[in-house]
């Protein structure tokens, strides 16, 4: 083989102007019973992603029974007024439908992914499971037992222990401090009747919304929704949120959860963050991107992974919530360098507070965020996910149209202010699951 150095060096290409992102502009309407509909049809992929969002997350569940919302979500497909669990699963599986309920702190979301040709029957099934579940005793006890086993298995993994501990440290007794899937005590104790009561209170058309994205006929969608959800009535009970904590009890401190024979330590740094509707959300996104939004090029990744080789990855993010629901740094490192990695993480956080970010680095972060927009609306499921977030948090409908200009407007002063408000080591808790010497 000839030496490779004889190959010509080509100059780095100069690029033309970026393409205009194609942000979906969906049709919005409400059914007679108040169910809001967001319809974003687009031909190309013979698939429809339906996402039904209900204000029925774990915040809405009775305080004495954490896990109620999660059990209700998982029991939707386990029997309805007209169809047994086995029949339901047989129908769903014959359609090839993928049904995935997910229960978060604020919302329960039921996503159904269908082949376009099965849209009408898929919507009929979605309506049936969401509006008429019966929580049959034997299925309830099976799901309860499986959930309890899953909670035990979850504790086998240090990363899970670290995640749960971080939430507890940041939010304490606030519902955001408990994982949205609940606790063993809650799941064990909640009576089956309470599941039906929760469902009756929070699964109502007024307050809920459904997003459809993908290849479908809008008229067919409207008719199928009207037919399927016609008998559903009423309004969801308002969810009472307790006031968010003022600051974590252990702010500024290190919490170590020892793990025998650990080769790695799981590290979490958690602060309160901000609610999704906060006017600083985009500014905070830029500041976070600089610190740890990208696992390789963010300051944390450049330091801990690329420079030191201590970790496979490190990232940070603000969580979206109705209330401030956390800002989290997460990584796993060699156990011997645990203390150093925590110290370097704090140093990077403080550096964003103490030194103004220079223009080039800020420019780079803004470009990365703005120009990635064309990728965000590629598939039916990604469109459905982004539209349901806008709708659920009642954000401006032109959010994504205005996004590039909003990112462009972020200044170095904004970044420094956000760093002071959210990345200050005195305002966050450091959690280590593993071992820490020195």
């Amino acid at each position, binding site marked *: 083989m000839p030496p490779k150095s004889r190959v010509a060096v080509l100059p780095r290409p100069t690029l033309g102007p970026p393409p205009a992102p194609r942000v979906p502009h969906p049709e919005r309407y409400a059914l007679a019973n108040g169910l809001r509909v967001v319809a974003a049809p687009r031909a190309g992929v013979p698939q429809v992603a339906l996402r039904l969002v209900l204000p029925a997350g774990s915040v809405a569940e009775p305080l004495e029974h954490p896990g109620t919302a999660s059990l209700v979500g998982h029991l939707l497909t386990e029997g309805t007024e007209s169809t047994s669990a*086995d029949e339901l*699963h047989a129908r769903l599986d014959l359609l090839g439908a993928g049904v995935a309920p997910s229960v978060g702190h604020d919302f329960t979301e039921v996503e159904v*992914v269908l082949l376009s040709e099965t849209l009408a029957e898929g919507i009929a099934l979605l309506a049936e499971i969401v509006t008429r579940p019966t929580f049959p005793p034997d299925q309830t006890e099976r799901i309860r037992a499986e959930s309890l086993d899953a909670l035990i298995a979850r504790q086998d*993994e240090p990363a899970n222990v670290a995640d749960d501990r971080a939430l507890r440290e940041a939010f304490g007794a606030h519902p955001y401090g408990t994982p949205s899937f609940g606790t063993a005590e809650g799941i064990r104790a909640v009576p089956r009747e309470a599941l039906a009561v929760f469902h009756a209170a929070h699964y109502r058309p007024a307050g809920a919304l459904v997003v459809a994205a993908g290849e479908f006929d809008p008229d067919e969608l409207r008719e199928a929704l009207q037919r399927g959800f016609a008998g559903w009535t009423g309004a969801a009970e308002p969810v009472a949120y307790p006031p968010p904590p003022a600051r974590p009890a252990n702010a500024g401190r290190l919490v170590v959860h020892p793990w025998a024979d650990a080769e790695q330590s799981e590290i979490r740094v958690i602060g309160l963050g901000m609610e999704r509707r906060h006017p600083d959300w985009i500014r905070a996104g830029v500041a976070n991107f600089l610190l740890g939004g990208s696992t390789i090029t963010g300051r944390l990744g450049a330091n801990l992974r690329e420079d030191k*080789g201590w970790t496979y990855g490190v990232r940070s993010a603000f969580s979206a919530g109705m209330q401030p629901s956390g800002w989290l740094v997460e990584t796993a490192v060699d156990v011997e360098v645990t203390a150093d990695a925590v110290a370097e993480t704090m140093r990077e956080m403080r550096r964003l507070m103490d030194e103004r970010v220079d223009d080039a680095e800020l420019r780079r972060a803004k470009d990365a965020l703005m120009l990635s927009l*064309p990728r965000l609306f590629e598939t039916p499921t990604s469109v459905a996910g982004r539209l349901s977030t806008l709708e659920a948090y009642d954000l401006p409908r032109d959010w994504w149209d205005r996004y590039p200009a909003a990112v462009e407007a972020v200044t170095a002063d904004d970044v420094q202010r956000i760093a002071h408000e959210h990345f200050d080591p005195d305002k966050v808790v450091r959690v280590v699951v593993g071992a820490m010497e020195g």
Partner: protein
Amino acid sequence: MARAAGAEVLHSPAAATISERSTRTHVTDTIATSALRFPVRTHALGNGMRIICHEDRSAPIVAVHLMYRVGSRDERPGRTGLAHLLEHLMFEGSLHAPKGQFDDLLERVGGTNNGSTWLDRTNYFETVPSNAVELPLWLERERMAFFLPVLDAEMLEVQRGVVINERRQSCESRPYGMADERLHEMLFAGGHPYAWPTIGYMPDLEAITLDDARGFYQTYYTPGNAVLVLAGDISAYDGIALAERYFGDLPPGPSIPPLALPADPAPSADVSHETMEDDVSFPRVYAAWAVPGYGTRAWVALDVLAYLLADGDSSRLQRALVREGRLAQDVDSYLYPTALCGVFGVVATARSGIEPPALESAVRRVLDEVASDGVSDDEVLGAVRRVRRDQVSELAMVEERAEALAYAATVLGEPEALERVMDLYAAVTPEEVRRAAEEWLGAHRAATLVVVPRAGGAEVDDAA
């Protein structure tokens, strides 16, 4: 758990979009599954590099996918993990795009990039807004032609550390994290190149030298051993012209010695069964079989069987083990689309109070029932639809479509093979599914590994 893990490596012959063709109604009259099509234009450069263009203007982005026909199967014992470690090194810069620039330049234009290594192939891929397509091509040219001058000991040490951490995070420190490695060792006794893990053994990762990395790069990272796919908002005409500009002048590289294959990729005939302790709360049973390779008719029938067994709550194993039998918390089945042979697996985690033998015999009973009594038309119809659902979901992204085309070209010889494999699903009969279970998933061909909670393994669990 294993559903996601299985699906993630299962770069299945998925399909998306485009034209409706004739409706196939093989199993019953109701299986309305129009074929999925993705038209391609192919082109070969003078140095042997194959170019595949797939135009789809639905989003203003382009996926660039460069796949080298090299994976952990091309390593030798004592140097396992070399292919994957080299993949990490390839992100550390080149002569004219030094360290840090690769990710930096791509992020600046709104792109993403990644790479991965598996048994049969290594890939590097970028998705960028369509104005920026030349940037990943230039960067890939850089690391195909100008990587060796920057490869040094310091770079190797840092990335060795990253990979060792990756191994700890995904194997040693993860519950059940060592199971797949041991299962493959059992399944592929006798030095078959699928016997060792792609991430490599810890002592081998420690032992890899700069010369190892250089030699591997010089042998395999050549235009003649690569397939380039451009998918998305770009015409075939432009794609081929750009490929010529950025790769056409590179020397072809040495010819690659053929892989010395054992005569029989199947396990050494006898049942193998082992038990392994781990820091876990529940026993988990793993069973695996060596089966025909990706793209064969038997492989497609086995893929339908995998869905019929454990995808969906009405599937056979979900009913027998979870919903009705109440023996398992979860059960999954998977099929690797690997080239030398496929790997079919079943994984089940016990419920509280259930011992592994009960799980093992329940799995065996379900497989035996399929083999002896067969499956229904509706079971096959539903399974084929669920396969199709996953294919459509996966291939909705141009990045995944580019990978599927590159993989078909790398493993099956040409990108058009992807559509051929997809079309085979609609023709699968209940009898073929039954025969696949009988022929390939017999008890005598299984490797079975049972992971059990460590005896006396009480953990220190006090928060400080």
